[in-house]
């Protein structure tokens, strides 16, 4: 019926089977490798999911660089950088949590997972502040892009930064007048507004929104792991779920590592 098992049971008193070893696996190690392989395959599909959006980004940025250079100034670099640091820190606490699970350090594992959850919440909180500000200022996707104000001035003297081009030579596709500016704006403030700036915000909301959903999913999974670690389910012989959830959380971090410079740091 069952293949000859080479696994060695843990301490006596636990029956003839480790508590969390599924019956179709011979050893905890085999169960762990199978789960890990499945997780990695899932992560590959996740990269391909985001890959479609990165492809969208690349096509539009290569065709309309002026939209990206203009519109990204509406984003708050500082908040983006803080969020990057928060996610990196939560990745550290998650990786440390996996270590704790491997070593059977239950209290430290609970602490690490709680800190990781706090990092995820902080990230989403800052994202909420950013979204709310965009919403209030009319910085939305496609045709819903109706800005109340022009973006903060780029660099001091942007045109001079491009020595090859005269300052007045904007690429084709630019309107001469900023449509959405208040009539009271002084001529000095006027700057040609590229057409279809809403495109940038379509991409911004789609990419950061999908990423935000992943943060929520990751936090849900970490919450599940946290409950189980409080119950003391994990130890050197069984820490697979902590490891898999950790891999997922690191992937969420990886995607943001690319989103941050591509959306916030264009110049």
């Amino acid at each position, binding site marked *: 019926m069952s293949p000859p098992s080479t696994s060695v049971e843990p301490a006596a008193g636990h029956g003839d089977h480790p508590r969390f070893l599924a019956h179709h696996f011979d050893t905890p*190690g085999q169960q762990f490798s199978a789960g890990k392989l499945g997780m990695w395959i899932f992560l590959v599909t996740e990269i391909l999911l985001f890959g479609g959006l*990165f492809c969208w980004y690349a*096509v539009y940025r290569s065709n309309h660089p002026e939209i990206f250079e203009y519109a990204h100034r509406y984003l708050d670099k500082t908040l983006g950088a803080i969020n990057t640091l928060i996610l990196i820190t939560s990745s550290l606490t998650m990786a440390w949590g*996996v270590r704790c699970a491997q070593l059977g350090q239950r209290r430290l594992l609970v602490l690490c997972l709680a800190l990781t959850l706090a990092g995820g919440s902080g990230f989403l909180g800052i994202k909420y502040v950013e979204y709310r500000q965009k919403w209030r200022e009319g910085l939305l996707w496609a045709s819903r892009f109706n800005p109340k104000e022009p973006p903060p001035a780029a660099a001091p003297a942007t045109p001079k930064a491009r020595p090859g081009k005269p300052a007045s030579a904007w690429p084709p596709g630019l309107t001469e007048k900023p449509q959405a500016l208040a009539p009271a704006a002084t001529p000095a403030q006027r700057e040609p507004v590229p057409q279809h700036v809403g495109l940038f915000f379509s991409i911004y909301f789609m990419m950061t929104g999908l990423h935000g959903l992943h943060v929520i999913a990751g936090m849900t999974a970490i919450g599940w792991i946290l409950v189980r670690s409080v119950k003391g389910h994990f130890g050197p012989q069984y820490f697979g779920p902590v490891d898999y959830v950790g891999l997922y959380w690191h992937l969420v971090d990886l995607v943001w590592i690319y989103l941050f*410079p591509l959306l916030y740091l264009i110049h």
Partner: protein
Amino acid sequence: MSTDAPALEAQPPVHEHGPMGHVVSPAVLLAVFAVLVLLTLITVAAATPRLDFGPWNVWIALGIATIKASLVALYFMHLRYDNPFYGLLFVTAPLFLAVLLGLVLLDVSGYQGDIQTG
């Protein structure tokens, strides 16, 4: 048959290389974290108007992001210590993404001139 093999396995893998993966040391975790923070600050600093490398800006930013991503994958995600098969699997994703991106951009730039001259 052999009676001592199970006895050897009976010890739980608390040492650095158990049968179920490598336990990354706190020193490595903290060092990787420090480098990640440093690279984040560098990538922000490189995006100030004073430092303008023209068309290279985006490639510098992507290069730094790729170094950061590799550090996360190698150490936080254990790829450096794990069965290389997981790493091979993981690398197929950016590889196929590069094929997709490369061909799409070639195609788009192929007829972009026809659209924009009108």
